[in-house]
């Protein structure tokens, strides 16, 4: 057989068919996390700490246990610290367990301390009031800079890893430093050096579907879990570890997922439901309230940053330095290293130095949120670049083009870039009508570039052909934004059968090999690559069956337009055999035909974007409206362009929220003040303009069709682009997010 590994002209890829699960999702039929029930099911509820930091002196569950509707109560004593199989946990599993259920200390407002299962959701909520917890309240800290100060309360001794230099506060748990060249020499060469400090608040992923699950676990150690998750294998692995059972004995099925954006890459309630179920010997369902989602699931990190950049009069950057302090809640994990590595990645720099800190505080454990760490750094760096352009009288796109990284550039994080598409996005920005459109009085325009690594990850895909010539594809990455459509398009492209003849299923953990989470913009890249290779694996067998029927060697058959075709010296000797013709007889010609892929694709391909935004600021109230927005991003190859546009638009919209209004607000008591959507202000339909998109396609050498992930890069530029637009509209540099009206009005007043 002959197959080109790389493909650039397509039949199905690049078209825009309806998604396969569309009907289910417009009729209410699709089953999301909370849409499940089972015979004998109980309802679980979780008691949460009202304190930001407190020693748990005593938990008395006796009254709850005595209540007639209550069938089980669990505390930390019911997790794997105490059980037979693999007792004890370390590393991230221990952190997750500690977050799922507090042991000796409650570490943030909302930290789980106990849970009940009862015969109804109301009974479970009522029963929580019967649990008595005695707390000894401890001093707390929720701000990143204060958490690093010498007098800050210590969240946990010994949490720091190898990287933290001597003498730092124990709340600093990881330190990253990288770069190259000599920044001091570079600054000395500059005509203008700007040094400034920036801050961003923690924001929540804000998925509309709260966490929900139903778990069933018996005393035999066998269990079933249904949950809304970005990755059911990680849920399987983690729950098994936390409950002390064997991984393979827990079968996890992913529900349809109502948004995740990184926040559903770990577990919160799932181990609790299983622990309750094990005690009650009945299925237990837990559904978080919105307030629980805000208080106890992963917001992103907050950040405090110092940036220094030197530039020549012609716009050449001579040196760049950034210090990034990220607060990630009461556990290690804030992506200070990612912030540092991404911040200057768009630029070709001779002298660059970046430092990242991971700092703990009394807040919920941060979780990944779309390009974790990158948006904050871009905000700070691109703000300083904008200010340099303003002060030197240079065009912001020209300056970025002048310094843009390209193939062969030494990246700020070290290696040399392969083929990348930043320059193409900047050229598209410059040519876009938006960039030259006139602005009205009171409006300002901002641009920003953004970078994200993208990810591959462990991937399994299985593809099975049916006798009638249709195909089923089993993937292990939950469909969070239309990926079933992309998989079907890629399979159709390889098999040469219509898109509609392919059914894509998100398989459970018992029916497919391990899959990494739907994160790191990896689904279309990695599950896509796996689907292509699984389909090619099937095609090899189809060709072999045809070859056998013709009595010619298998390598003398090629696959064209859904048919086996004799090639080489046999070309034209036999009529092409369509796929369905081969599968119709497959049982008698060697058995079922399936294709597989199990590997860890390495070659995700980094991606870049450039955003243009116009903002209008009311000088009397400080209120900002976004009047025009254009996203330009390199997709490598857009498999289903409409869903690629959707990722761009969604990233921009989330960025608008982060830039203008979204923030975690803590009171002096360390309690979260705004744990409902009324006060955690995500953008509503009337807040936004249409969001224009330009899909740039610079193929990724690491994917057979050239795909680069598109899910995350789109949230990297908005914070900076909007801050630049607002600053240019208001005439004053905004250095703190969100740029809420009180902050803008105060800045305008300070500016006279």
């Amino acid at each position: 057989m002959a197959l080109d590994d790389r493909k650039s002209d397509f039949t199905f890829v690049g078209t825009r068919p309806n998604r396969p699960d569309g009907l289910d999702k417009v009729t209410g039929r699709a089953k999301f996390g909370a849409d499940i029930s089972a015979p004998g099911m109980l309802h679980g509820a979780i008691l949460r700490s009202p304190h930001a930091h407190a020693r748990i002196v005593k938990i008395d569950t006796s009254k709850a246990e005595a209540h007639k509707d209550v069938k089980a109560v669990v505390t930390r004593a019911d997790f794997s610290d105490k059980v037979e199989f693999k007792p004890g946990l370390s590393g991230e599993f221990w952190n997750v367990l500690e977050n799922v259920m507090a042991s000796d200390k409650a570490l943030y407002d909302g930290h789980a301390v106990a849970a009940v299962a009862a015969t109804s959701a109301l009974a479970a909520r009522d029963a929580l009031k019967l649990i008595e917890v005695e707390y000894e309240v401890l001093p707390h800290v929720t701000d990143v800079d204060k958490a690093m100060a010498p007098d800050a309360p210590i969240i946990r001794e010994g949490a720091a890893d190898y990287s933290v230099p001597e003498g730092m506060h124990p709340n600093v748990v990881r330190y990253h430093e990288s770069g190259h060249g000599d920044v001091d020499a570079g600054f000395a060469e500059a005509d203008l050096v700007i040094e400034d400090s920036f801050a961003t608040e923690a924001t929540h992923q804000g998925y509309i579907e709260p966490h929900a699950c139903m778990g069933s676990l018996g005393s035999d150690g066998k269990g079933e879990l249904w949950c809304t998750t970005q990755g059911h294998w990680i849920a399987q692995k983690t729950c098994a570890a936390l409950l002390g059972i064997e991984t393979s004995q827990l079968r996890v099925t992913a529900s349809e997922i109502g948004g995740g954006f990184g926040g559903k890459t770990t577990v919160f309630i799932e181990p609790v439901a299983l622990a309750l179920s094990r005690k009650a010997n009945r299925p237990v369902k837990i559904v978080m309230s919105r307030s629980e989602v805000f208080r106890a699931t992963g917001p992103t990190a907050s950040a405090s940053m110092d940036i220094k950049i030197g530039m020549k009069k012609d716009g050449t950057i001579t040196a760049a330095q950034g210090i990034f302090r990220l607060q990630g809640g009461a556990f290690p994990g804030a992506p200070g290293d990612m912030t540092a590595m991404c911040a200057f990645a768009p630029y070709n720099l001779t002298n660059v130095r970046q430092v990242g800190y991971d700092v703990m505080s009394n807040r919920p454990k941060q979780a990944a949120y779309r390009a974790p760490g990158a948006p904050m750094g871009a905000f700070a760096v691109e703000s300083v670049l904008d200010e340099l352009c303003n002060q030197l009288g240079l065009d912001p796109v020209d300056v970025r083009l002048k310094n843009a990284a390209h193939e062969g550039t030494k990246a700020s994080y070290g290696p040399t870039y392969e083929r990348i598409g930043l320059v193409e996005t900047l050229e598209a920005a410059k040519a876009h009508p938006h960039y030259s459109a006139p602005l009205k009085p009171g409006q300002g325009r901002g641009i920003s570039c953004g970078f994200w690594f993208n990810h591959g990850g462990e991937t399994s895909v299985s593809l099975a052909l049916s006798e009638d010539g249709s195909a089923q594809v089993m993937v292990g990455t939950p469909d969070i934004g239309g990926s079933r459509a992309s998989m079907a398009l890629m399979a159709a492209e390889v098999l040469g059968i219509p898109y509609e003849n392919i059914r894509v299923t998100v398989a459970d953990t018992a029916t497919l090999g391990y899959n990494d989470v739907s994160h790191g913009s990896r689904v279309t890249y990695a599950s896509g690559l796996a689907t292509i290779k699984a389909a090619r694996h099937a095609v090899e067998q189809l060709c072999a069956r045809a070859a056998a029927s013709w009595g010619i060697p298998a390598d003398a058959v090629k696959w064209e337009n859904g048919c086996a075709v004799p090639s080489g010296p046999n070309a034209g000797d036999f009529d092409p055999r369509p796929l369905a013709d081969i599968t119709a007889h497959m049982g008698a010609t060697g058995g079922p035909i399936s294709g597989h892929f199990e590997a860890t694709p390495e070659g995700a391909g980094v991606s870049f974007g450039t955003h243009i935004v116009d903002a209008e600021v009311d000088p009397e109230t400080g209120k900002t409206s976004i009047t025009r927005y254009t996203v330009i991003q390199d997709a490598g190859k857009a498999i289903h362009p409409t869903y690629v546009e959707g990722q761009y638009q969604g990233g921009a919209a989330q960025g608008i929220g982060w830039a203008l209004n979204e923030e975690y607000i803590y009171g002096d008591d360390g309690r979260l003040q705004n744990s409902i959507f009324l006060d955690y202000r995500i953008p509503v339909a009337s807040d936004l303009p249409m969001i224009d998109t330009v899909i740039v396609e610079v193929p990724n050498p690491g994917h057979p069709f050239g795909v680069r992930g598109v899910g995350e890069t789109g949230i990297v530029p908005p914070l900076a682009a909007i801050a630049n637009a607002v600053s240019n509209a208001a005439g004053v540099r905004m250095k703190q997010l969100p740029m809420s009206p009180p902050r803008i009005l105060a800045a305008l007043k300070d500016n006279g």
Partner: protein
Amino acid sequence: MSKLHVSTTVNGDTVEYLCDPRETLLDCLRDKLNLTGAKEGCGTGDCGACSVTVDGRLVCSCLMLGVEAEGKQIETVEGIADGDILHPLQKKMIEYAALQCGICTPGVLVAAKSLLEKNPNPTEEETRYWLAGNLCRCTGYDKIIRAVMDTAAEMREAS
């Protein structure tokens, strides 16, 4: 706390249930009638994922008690299609890729249908404000607004 008996009509079907007075209409639809199309995204009337109509009026079913449904006519996302014929809004939502995760979609559909019944020719601004109570975190609303307005145009032509 004794439970209360409620008789009501949902998508044209006569139904009955017993509920605790604290349970919302959304709880009753989902847990007692197994109509899980309406979603609870917030429980405070801020996200619109639980949108239904009650006697033709668009409301959040999380902000109405189950007992208040007595004698009412309730319409949910499950009742939008006419048998196997999708409502034009449902078709356009799919065609425009106006959903990514799909959790807000039931509420958006119920709200948009209510809009088009009251205003067959909404402007973009009217559409955006009418749907301001339906949070979507995935799409940035662009494709939702286009799908609704294109449906309106198509329905105007058809009528």
